[in-house]
């Protein structure tokens, strides 16, 4: 692997650690799902860690990230405490979305991770909108007047923020892909669109779902130039995404990056994987990005075998702690069922919910929530 230059030792170690954390986290999440600690869908990123770490490590802290329903790794990579991610999976009150979102809807405003979205292709326009707001602030000089809606973020941006929007190969067939790329190119929005080409949309292979399989070219007719990287190689991903971000930051026009990768597990937990052969999976597993990068660092004398072992132990420990945190976190109070449906404001009166007759299980909570006179929360 790796024709791309290596970062310094500390950075290289951190990248390896970040990928390892995602791997161990996802493995454990799978186990917790099997033990019914986690409900709903669970989409794991195992095999795709280099795309996550390579791209997010190319971002500045002030840049925004918007991704999909396969986003535990994105949250972790941006620094969301693993416990809060695991607690969200467990549906607990301390989850990063307070148990309202679940696996597909992670969010961390403070770290400018602007969500996990469950609708394939639904996140693209939203990313363009975030980029539009950044661009607007820069052009119209709204410094100090924006970001009012995000608590805890630095209120003033640096006028250089770029948005990274990731989505799958399957999402490139959605209307929002064409619509958003066109609009972003037309309005010269600072956004990097990154297609995580894991070569399947659920059980449909790329060649069976897209007429154009060279996905980096799919933006050409829309005015968005493409680039590609090896999504199994964290260095190459980082190099290409860095270039794309720099280009977007300076030229202020969107770029499409295709990262070719492979998911080692099923699409979600309920996937018998009849659409691909065990041999194919085994072949890709040989290119597992984590041991590959570890071996490279060892080869280069940046870390030794013991250090690699330590990184893994740290990750396992962090995940142990995350599970313990999630276990200890209570389920959300029943009263929170009606919380955050609206931002309750003084000028709003009247009934938000159809009927104030609460189901008995709500302990009458709805009666107070049903009328939003400003005191509902």
């Amino acid at each position, binding site marked *: 692997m790796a024709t791309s230059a290596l970062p310094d030792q500390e950075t290289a170690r951190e990248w390896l650690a970040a990928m390892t954390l995602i791997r161990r986290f996802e493995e454990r999440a799978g186990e917790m799902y099997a033990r019914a600690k986690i409900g709903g869908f669970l989409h794991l990123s195992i095999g795709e860690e280099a795309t996550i770490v390579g791209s997010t490590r190319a971002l500045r802290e002030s840049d925004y990230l918007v991704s999909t329903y396969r986003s535990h790794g994105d949250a972790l990579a941006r620094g969301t405490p693993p416990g809060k991610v695991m607690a969200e999976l467990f549906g607990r009150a301390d989850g990063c979305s307070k148990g309202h979102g679940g696996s597909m809807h992670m969010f961390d405003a403070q770290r400018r991770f602007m969500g996990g979205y*469950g609708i394939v292709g639904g996140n693209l326009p939203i990313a363009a*909108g975030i980029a*539009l707001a950044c661009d607007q602030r820069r052009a119209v000089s709204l410094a100090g007047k924006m970001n009012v809606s995000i608590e805890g973020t630095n209120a003033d941006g640096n006028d250089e923020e770029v948005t990274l929007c990731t989505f799958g190969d399957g999402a490139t067939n959605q*209307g929002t892909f064409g*619509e958003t790329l066109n609009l972003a190119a037309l309005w010269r929005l600072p956004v990097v669109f990154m297609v995580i080409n894991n070569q399947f949309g659920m059980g449909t292979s790329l060649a069976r779902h897209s007429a154009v399989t060279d996905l980096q070219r799919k933006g050409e007719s829309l005015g968005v130039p493409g680039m590609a990287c090896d999504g199994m190689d964290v260095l190459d991903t980082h190099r290409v995404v860095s270039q794309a971000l720099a280009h977007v930051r300076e030229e202020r026009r969107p770029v499409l990056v295709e990262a070719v990768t492979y998911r080692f597990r099923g699409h979600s937990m309920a996937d018998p994987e009849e659409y691909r052969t065990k041999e194919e999976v085994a072949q890709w597993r040989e290119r597992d990005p984590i041991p590959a990068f570890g071996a490279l660092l060892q080869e280069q004398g940046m870390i030794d075998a013991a250090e690699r072992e330590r990184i893994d132990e740290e990750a396992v420990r962090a995940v142990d702690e995350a599970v313990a945190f999630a276990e200890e976190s209570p389920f959300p109070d029943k009263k929170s069922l009606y919380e955050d449906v609206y931002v309750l404001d003084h000028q709003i009166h009247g009934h938000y919910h159809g009927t104030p007759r609460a189901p008995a299980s709500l302990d009458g909570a709805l009666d107070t929530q049903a009328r939003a006179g400003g005191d509902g929360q």
Partner: protein
Amino acid sequence: MTEMRYRDALKLALREEMERDERVVLMGEDIGVFGGAFKVTEGLLAQFGERRVRDTPISENTIVGVGIGAAMVGLRPVVELMTVNFALLAFDQIVNHAAHIHYMFGGQARVPLVVRMPQGAGHQLGPTHSHCFEAMFLHVPGLLVAAPATPADARGLLKAAVRDENPVVFVEHESLYGVRGEVDETEEGVTDFGCARVAREGSDVTIVGVSRMALTAERAADQLAAEHGVDAEVIDPRTLRPLDLDTILASVAKTNRCIIVEEGWPHGGVGANFVALISEQAFDDLDAPVARVSGADVPMPYSKPLEDIAFPHESDIVRAALLVLGRDSSAASIAPTPAHDGERDAHRVAPGAIQEAMPRASR
């Protein structure tokens, strides 16, 4: 107070809010150079420039999504969709995203977005351009839904919508853009959400009219007074989410009879919802079942005489009032017109609304 058209009242609200708050930006198809399909935004491009008045490609779902993203990080976008029918292409962003983001991300992000769209029949535009869909948006928790009927509320509600921290679906009416009315141009003229307007006080029957139907109901009330000695109270809810149910219930407690008038389809409509709420909460106040007058349960036809009988008119409301009052509708002195062939009743009145009201109301 100044007299102005509904259209100009909307424009005034946009202009004032854009002057007041630099974060307010407009986006929509043909809103800039063309001035808006209904000329609501005419002149705003010249005043505020291309950055704040943005002509967009014809990409409804994406325009709304861009508004959502921009709202999440601090802009106050007002998106215009050319008509409510095209809003159906943006249903994903409006429902799955705008309405749910605050909730599904545990309150970490807000979507202070306004999506404006006109609706309504009467212009012979056929099935893809004439419907009323406020009921579809009313269905969705997380959205606020406003439907102004007067120029005063057009300005007042739009200003309140821009200032609100929640996503607002702002339903205008194509037939109202040219209607004139007095507008309070001060801060006092901002219309709080969740406050119904009692358009006419009365004691015999409550008529709730939604969007344009508030005006039709007022005219019907005049007719009821002049020709039948019936003193009707007319209520315009102004916002459907939140709903000022208290004002409606207080009126029903006084009149003991109620009619809901809407232009949209009867099944799962606004009227169906109101009937449920009123009968759940004011059953003992009712002397007759609540009646609905709605649009016909058909795709909107093109041909003028057909279109005309496919949405409610004053005479339909008068007839419904006489029915819930237990008076024989055949005695009504409504001059028969081509639009009043008895035949249409079978198609256009909400099943089980007026027909069912008749036997019971006459008990």
